[in-house]
C-alpha cells in the first residue's frame, strides 16, 4: 500500500514550523524598531495609568 501525502497539509505544517521558528528566535532586541517603539509606548501608558479597574 502506497503512502499518500496530503500536500496541502504538508505545506500547512511547514508554514507553521517556519512561523514557530521565527517566533522562537525573536528576542525583544531583535524585534523591528516599530514594534519596540509600540512596546515602549505601551509600557509608558501602563506605567502612567496602570491597568483599568
Amino acid at each position: 500500500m502506497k503512502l499518500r501525502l496530503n500536500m496541502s497539509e504538508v505545506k500547512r505544517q511547514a508554514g507553521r514550523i517556519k512561523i514557530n521558528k521565527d517566533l522562537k528566535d525573536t528576542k525583544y532586541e531583535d524585534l523591528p524598531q516599530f514594534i519596540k517603539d509600540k512596546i515602549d509606548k505601551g509600557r509608558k501608558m501602563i506605567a502612567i495609568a496602570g491597568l483599568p479597574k
Partner: protein
Amino acid sequence: MRHDQYAVEETASLSEFEFYSEGPKGKFKKRVKLVPLGEGSLVYNLAFGDVSSNGEIDDLSVTNNNDSQKVLATVASTAYKFLEQHPDCYLYATGSTRARIRLYRMGITNNLAEITADFLVYGFCGNEWEAFERGKEYEAFLVKKRTFGI
C-alpha cells in the same frame, strides 16, 4: 464575526498569525504578532502589517487592495482567538499613524455592541485608561476578555 475574513495560519501559542490579502493589486502576505510588553507581562502588543521582502513586518506599507474591512476583520479575529486562549491577558493596540488609529477606532465603534458582548474595551485618553466611548479620540486601545460576572 459577521464580516468576511481571510483564512489565517497560526502558531500553537496563538502569538503569531499570517494570512494573505487578495485583491486588484495582487496577493500580499500579512502578519499579526503579539509580543508581551515585558517579561511576564499580562499586556501584549498587537503588531500588524505586510510581510516585507526581508521577512519583517512593515506597518507603514499601504496596499490599497480594496479589502481593508476584510483585513481588519481578520486581524480582529486573531485578537479574539488569542484572548479566548489567554483570558487574563490584555491586548494593547495603536495605529502607526493618526489615520490608522482613527481607522481602528472606527472599526471598534462600528462593531462595539458585538465586541463588548465578549470583551472589555478601553481607550487611552488624558493619561488614563477609560471604558471605550463612541466619538472620543484615543491614542491606544486595550482589550480584555470579559470574565463571567464582570
